[in-house]
């Protein structure tokens, strides 16, 4: 035994005698993870979060979250002797007078944009492949909660520097709070410590941004990952992969090296962006004052849809019994986002109610094989994209020489008309792709080779798929519709009445599929042709 082995053995022995970790580690070092590029998306979100913690901690060493008035004396000449808040002055100090300060600020901002983007793309992957199905509904809900918090955390973060742009964002948040019926005025006075903007809002959101929310993030992310670990990862269907196994690489060493290496790659790319791509150059905006604004005010990308919805809202306000309700703020600012996020959180339960499927699923769906879900996803995405386009309507107008009115009316009409259209088109595309799969399995791949037969007929040679490919294209289930039971054998009406009717209706829409080839059909063709 070498000296090194002896020392390692002693350390391991010391730890195990006090924790009993060896038994757990023995089992888990060889844990198998399936390999697919799309499983990387959640990893990007996790790594961005770590980058945010590191770069954010660096920034707190200099940032002064105070709205106390100071006169700027730093090295950025255009703002010299300008009166501003300590928050803005310290942000300028980080940007111009701390070595690497601007780099860390930009890394932090880029990481935040990537964090939310990675969560969204990860969520789309989970949605379109059906990874949220039993037993992973809890993790889906945790994911929706994390996305919601990430958006809030991002907004609070870019509101901290108290520059003209971020102050305008806070102004809008203030108006949303104030628009809440009955309690809005009180809530806004409590949140801002009095009239807008007051002197306490930035210190308050600072502690939420650097302590409260990151703490909640840590807790939720831990549970999210523990559940992934415990329930084992889902896998894409294919030969050798079943609902009862996991096929992939062991954690030690392949996955550790790949995942660890990938963390450095994500960090490196974020650092590269921070080095070369300017983001939020807030010294150009000047300090916040409620009487000024810059044209082309834009929030960070993940708030764009919300801003777009507010922009396209019709000018609706009602005055009843001396009270005002601002529907033009409430509907786009609170009600629609509320519906979107609640609907998202409940979706696994809605789908399992429609399909009547209460079994566990560890094999992922190919999106085309679940046309209704895929179409629903495309529909929701279309809604969000149009909202987001409208959020940038002023920028689009100036870049493409359009008027804001044209874009606004396109959005107002489009957000109602285009999502259902996207649903229908996506469903058709899915069914066509199913048809193509069926064709491939039964008649093979077109090779492009034309052959003249002895009697002069030309045919194109089709090449039969490999058994593995054939299996991959036919392994999925095709659900049958739930039969509507109007009354039972003794003539008693179904007590669920209308609910059963809706369920049967949705389930029959869900069961619309192109029949996949069966073994019998394949066999028949094979015996006929060859």
């Amino acid at each position, binding site marked *: 035994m070498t000296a090194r082995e002896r020392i390692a053995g002693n350390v391991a022995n010391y730890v195990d005698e006090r924790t009993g970790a060896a038994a757990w580690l023995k089992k888990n070092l060889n844990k198998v993870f399936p390999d697919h590029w799309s499983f990387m998306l959640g990893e990007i979100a996790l790594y961005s979060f770590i980058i945010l913690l590191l770069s954010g901690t660096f920034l707190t060493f200099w940032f002064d979250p105070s709205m106390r008035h100071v006169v700027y004396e730093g090295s950025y000449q255009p703002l010299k002797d300008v009166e501003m808040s300590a928050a803005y002055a310290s942000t300028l100090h980080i940007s111009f007078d701390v*070595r690497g300060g601007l780099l860390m600020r930009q890394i932090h901002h880029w990481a935040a944009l990537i964090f939310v983007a990675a969560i969204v793309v990860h969520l789309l992957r989970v949605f379109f492949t059906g990874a949220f199905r039993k037993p992973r509904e809890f993790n889906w809900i945790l994911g929706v909660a994390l996305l919601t918090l990430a958006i809030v955390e991002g907004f609070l973060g870019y509101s901290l520097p108290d520059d003209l742009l971020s102050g305008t964002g806070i102004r809008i948040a203030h108006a949303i709070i104030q628009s809440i019926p009955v309690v809005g005025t*009180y809530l806004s*006075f409590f949140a801002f410590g009095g009239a807008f903007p007051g002197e306490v809002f930035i210190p308050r959101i600072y502690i939420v941004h650097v302590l409260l929310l990151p703490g909640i993030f840590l807790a939720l992310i831990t549970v999210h990952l523990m559940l992934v670990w415990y329930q084992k990862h889902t896998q894409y269907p294919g030969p050798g992969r079943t609902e009862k196994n996991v096929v992939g*690489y062991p954690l030690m060493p*392949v996955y550790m090296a790949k995942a660890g290496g990938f963390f450095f790659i994500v960090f490196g790319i974020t*650092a590269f962006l921070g080095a070369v791509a300017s983001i939020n150059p807030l010294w150009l905006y000047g300090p916040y004052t409620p009487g000024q604004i810059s044209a082309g*005010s834009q929030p960070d990308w993940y708030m764009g849809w919300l801003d777009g919805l*507010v922009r396209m809202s019709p000018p609706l306000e009602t005055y009843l019994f001396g009270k005002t309700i601002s529907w033009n703020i409430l509907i786009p600012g609170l009600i629609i986002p509320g519906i979107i996020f609640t609907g998202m959180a409940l979706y696994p339960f809605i789908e399992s109610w429609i399909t009547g499927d209460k079994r566990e699923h560890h094999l992922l769906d190919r999106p085309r094989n679940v046309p209704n879900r895929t179409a629903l996803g495309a529909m929701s995405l279309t809604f969000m994209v149009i909202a987001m386009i409208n959020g940038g309507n002023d920028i689009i107008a100036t870049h493409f020489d359009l008027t804001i009115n044209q874009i606004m009316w396109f959005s107002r009409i489009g957000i109602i008309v285009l999502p259902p259209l996207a649903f229908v088109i996506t469903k058709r595309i899915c069914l066509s792709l199913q048809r193509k799969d069926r064709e491939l399995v039964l008649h093979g791949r077109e090779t492009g080779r034309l052959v003249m037969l002895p009697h002069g007929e030309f045919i194109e040679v089709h090449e039969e798929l490999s058994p593995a490919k054939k299996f991959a294209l036919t392994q999925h289930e095709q659900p049958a519709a739930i039969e509507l039971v109007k009354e039972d054998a003794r003539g008693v009406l179904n007590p669920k009445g209308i609910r059963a009717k809706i369920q049967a209706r949705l389930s029959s829409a869900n069961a619309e599929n192109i029949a996949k080839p069966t*073994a019998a059909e394949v066999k028949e063709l094979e015996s006929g042709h060859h």
Partner: protein
Amino acid sequence: MSKELEPLSDPGLPEHIHRKADIDPIAAKRAERQVAILFSLSAVGTLLFIYSFFFVNEDLFIFIPIMGSTNAQQLGIGIGMAASLLFIGFGAVHWAKTLMPDQEVIAERDELKSEQSDRDEFVKSAKAGAESAGLGRRPLIKRSLAAAAGLAGLPAVLLLRDLGPLPGNSLNETSWKSGTRLVTDPGDRPIRPSDLEVGAVAQVMPELAPGKKRTLENIAKDAVLLIRLRPSEFQLDAERFSWTYEGIIAFSKICSHMGCAVALYEQSTKHLLCPCHQSTFDVTRAAKVIFGPAARPLPQLAITVDADGFLIAKQPFTEAVGPSFWERKS
């Protein structure tokens, strides 16, 4: 529930194909060297970082295509840091892909559900626990505990009461009183009508009592926009017309939608536009909303001139300025 017919049979995992480095020692050696080179490049990045941090002048700007004039120190430490991280990542991934085992293995999934006996046991012990606590038999304890626990949440909420003052009537009030002079912002100089040409726009504030300082809270409610048109261009009723002075009309600059500064004035159309959500107000028709999400016109301030010929407010705003709120009348 699925109309499952006989599916095609599963051919099982495909046979494992060895990589070049698995069978060829030369290829393996080459991969090893490549990994080592990648790790060394990371070290070069760290050196660049250190060099830029200590030895590059912080006032040195260099020209980089696309980026333009760039601070050399920030760029150097940024690129150095990025390289030091990236190449560790590239090295590790390359190592895993070329030299670590790439044979897929199969692990069985255990059922998540507990054994039925464990479940039964759990229910039994949970019931026994509840039984021995006697919650079911002693409703008085149960109810009083529920009530007490509910009430105990109250202090937590009440403690937040002092987060801010009650709004009172403050949202309906601004610093504008009848006779308040309009002063320039910035500059705080009183204004005569002749200071504004036809077509001109100016931001003004109410004149402060001597020695007082303007707060951001004041600006958030007091900011006013002066616009001068030809009197004949107005389409106002008699009352609103009397609030103008020689073609000068004054509106609250705080958007009636969400409180942004309504700062974009288009001289040719005489429209005011809010850059936040594009609510558009027609100046000639008392800032009537002609486009966008705002539901109310900008409040108009009645103005006239005092004995010295300076512009003053005739009266306070007749309605609350800024975004709507529940208690707002009208």
